[in-house]
């Protein structure tokens, strides 16, 4: 569902009617998308749009936020038991920005608890089912956001992407999802996972809508020191319609159908006048190893605050302080959270820091250099988003390593802080969506969307 269509409906009926319809769709949803709706607040705000008190480019347009965005009207659970009843006293900067354009957040949607995972199976609120095939995963961790858009509940949804959490579910459900340049969108008010790679992005019906939303969401925020000055415009000089197809992503382990669909997209780009070359980035083979050292380290640090003392559920109050810490964390975190905290604590511990964390950061620097070098010769790099389409629910849950391998094509752009967008290109024979990933230069978000748009126009006319 396009944003423009919703705006037309607001004009034809009312914002209250549009928001009420979205709420009804959310309630009727069978894919376990929603964690909590903020019904009364949404309707109040819709009435303000109708009364002319709320204006903007998104006046009356409903959306949902992944439940790791702090917002009014509903708790912010991060899909954890620990924050089950956590009512935030403030809203994330990006929610404020969208609301200042008249958009209306109708509720909070499912994710892997604390965004740890790639399937939305690690949630304390149940598994979110794929929009096309309910026996399959939605992908993750922004699974609820992707399915909400794919099922037409709302025209767009906020997500977060630390290693693929927007791009992969977008690809699994057939919607557009962008992971912006690190620092393009404020992280203030979003439950942190790994501060050095966390990005705030959006999932939408098409590239045009995505570009509009990015125009609203990006920009420097005095509350987030890592944000960049407003830059959402084409930054680089195109090198002459030249794309690099990432060789390592097309080699072993890739589903033959996914491979074929990507090659078809390459032909389409050629037909649009692009020159497409295969490029190799040898450092890519270390990306997953780097990611699963650096990210758990930051996770173990960022999750230290959840101790049951100041907010969140507290267990063990009748015992010692240590009991409160141990029992609250034991009860509040999901198994995948605990796994990552343990890995992270290990790689940061005295005697291992240099061997793991420091070495991983050095390798990361080499990876970034390799990306910069290759990107200096192309407008963007292209390849698949994930090795295969959405897998069956439960398929990977017994094997964390197998699950981590699903991230192999998305973590490189995250580690390098580069913008990357996932755009639907086709389906496999069973009708499962397949997306293409377009990775751009730092700050080149608008440019990769422009490249994505050309393909979209070719496909939809």
């Amino acid at each position, binding site marked *: 569902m396009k944003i423009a269509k919703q705006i037309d409906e607001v004009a034809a009926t009312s914002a209250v009617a549009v928001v009420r319809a979205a709420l009804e769709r959310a309630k009727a949803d069978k894919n376990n998308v929603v964690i909590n709706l903020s019904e009364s607040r949404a309707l109040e705000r819709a009435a303000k749009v109708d009364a002319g008190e709320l204006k903007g480019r998104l006046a009356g347009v409903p959306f949902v936020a992944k439940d790791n965005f702090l917002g009014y009207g509903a708790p912010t659970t991060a899909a954890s038991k620990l924050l089950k009843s956590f009512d935030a006293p403030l809203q994330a900067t990006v929610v404020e920005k969208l609301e200042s354009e008249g958009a209306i957040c109708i509720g909070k949607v499912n994710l892997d608890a604390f965004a740890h995972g790639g399937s939305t199976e690690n949630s304390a609120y149940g598994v979110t089912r794929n929009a096309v095939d309910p026996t399959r995963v939605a992908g993750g961790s922004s699974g609820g956001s992707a399915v909400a858009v794919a099922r037409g509940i709302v025209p767009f949804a906020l997500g977060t992407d630390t290693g693929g959490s927007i791009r992969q579910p977008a690809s699994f459900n057939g919607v557009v999802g962008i992971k912006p340049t690190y620092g393009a969108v404020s992280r203030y008010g979003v439950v942190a996972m790994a501060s050095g790679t966390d990005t705030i992005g959006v999932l939408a019906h098409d590239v045009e809508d995505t570009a509009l939303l990015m125009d609203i969401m990006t920009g420097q925020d005095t509350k987030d*020191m*890592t944000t960049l000055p407003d830059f959402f415009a084409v930054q680089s000089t195109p090198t002459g319609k030249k794309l690099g197809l990432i060789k390592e992503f097309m080699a072993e382990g890739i589903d033959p159908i996914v491979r074929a669909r990507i090659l078809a997209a390459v032909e389409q780009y050629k037909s649009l006048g692009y020159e497409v070359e295969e490029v190799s980035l040898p450092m890519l083979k270390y990306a997953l190893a780097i990611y699963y050292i650096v990210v758990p380290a*930051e996770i173990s640090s960022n999750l230290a605050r959840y101790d049951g003392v100041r907010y969140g559920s507290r267990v063990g109050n009748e015992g010692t302080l240590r009991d409160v810490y141990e029992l609250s964390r034991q009860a509040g975190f999901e198994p995948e959270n605990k796994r990552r905290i343990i890995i992270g604590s290990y790689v940061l511990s005295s005697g291992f820091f240099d061997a793991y964390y420091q070495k991983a950061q050095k390798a990361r620097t080499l990876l970034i250099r390799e990306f910069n070098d290759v990107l200096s010769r192309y407008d963007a790099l292209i390849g698949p988003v994930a090795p295969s389409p959405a897998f069956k629910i439960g398929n990977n849950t017994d094997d964390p390593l197998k699950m981590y391998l699903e991230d192999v094509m998305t973590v490189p752009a995250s580690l390098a802080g580069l913008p990357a967008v996932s755009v639907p290109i086709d389906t496999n024979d069973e009708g499962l969506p397949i997306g293409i990933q377009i990775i751009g230069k730092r700050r080149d978000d608008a440019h990769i969307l422009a490249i994505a748009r050309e393909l979209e126009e070719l496909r939809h006319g």
Partner: protein
Amino acid sequence: MAQKEVLDTYEMTIGIECHVQLATKTKLFSAADNDARDSEPNSKVVPVDYGLPGMLPVLNWEAVRLSVRAGKALNSEIALRSHFDRKHYFYPDLPKGYQTTQMYEPIIGPGSIAVPLEDGSAVDVRIHHAHMEEDAGKLTHFDGYSLVDLNRAGTPLIEIVSEPDIHSAAAARAYATELHRLMTYSGVTHGDLYHGNMRFDVNISVAKKGVTELGTRAEIKNLNSFRSVERAAEYEFNRQIDILESGGKVVQETRGWDDDRQLTVSQRSKEDAQDYRYMPDPDIPPIVLTPEEVAEIQSDMPVLPQIYRDAWSSLGLDTSVVNTLLGTRRHAELVRKVQLDAGDGAATRIANLFASGLGSNSSDEQVSAIDEGVSADELIELAGMIEKSEISSNTAKDIFKALYAGEHNPRAIAEANNLLQNSDTDAIAVVVDEILADPASAKVLEDIRSGNDKAIGYLVGQVMKKSRGQANPALAQELLRKKL
């Protein structure tokens, strides 16, 4: 306790870590008020200090500026690139589960300060480095429960780490005192010790004199007065020697100072040492400074203690008088101004009044309210009155105190209270005659005539009393002698 002869065969080696709370308006990473003195618990706290999910630190640039000034006072190089790290441990006074500090790239590099000792000599203490970090909150323990106050959580600190260059308890105290002067003079901190603006951790070990290898050290944490730094060092020196003399081994541990009992108590041994899992903080970009920025920040540094010492070397003041004066920056400034405007004589008189009249080491902020009203011009007038013998030295002290009690104009104070000395010979002679004629003086007169010259003091006292303190005592004595 070991005999003095035994103690004399040992030497102590001390390094000091000093936490200095910076005098910024807001906290290191949030907009919360940084002055929580006498505030309700948890009233100076915003979501960032509370460690709420999704909150991010925003570096207070004023804290960087004050750190750069502190670096100048420590004769240190400023790192043009420094970075924050996270130090992890679980405790309710630490809302994020980590303290934001500078482990790997501190802002202040190596330096050194000359520490003046009471005997007039000085010892150089090298500074290893100083880093910025945030303070933790405060816990109050009750029977069966504890309460957390996060007002102090996020207060900007610099931690100044010295090299182990200190070898006596007195020098440890002198170092702490000099650091306090340097940090208050440069405007880095309010220096209010009572409110914990400066806190000292003393690392001390002992070894036989002449042995180069250092002994095992104990760390005495959280000392908040110069006196406790000295006493704790003395106590530890004796304690560690007692252990060694009785064939034992000093354990590496953290100890606390019990001020009531005047002794140190074990808190935590090395075996319980935590693994802080230090990690660069990805939420805070590096602090990058240019040499020009550093120079600009340091360009308006106030006069530091050593410069006063040099300027006052011509006054012939006792070291203790100089140190008392330097204890409060505003007092030092006033004496310097008196010296510049009215010369060494006036400055010496006023310096001695400060040394005898007011307490030392009060925080700048505490005294500033009253000090505001006292001007160098008033002090110069007071010095002039002393010089011309218009007032006695006791009267001068009274007027000085009156000025610091909020009164103004020394001459007006003296006149209003009839404190001016009478140097009119004729008028005093009348009083002298009265005293000599008084039958009560007969016994004393006899004593004097029989050779007890000191007894004349009694008669001078009587003249003073009769004149209600206004007679110039020197003149009174001269007249008495003449008449006798």
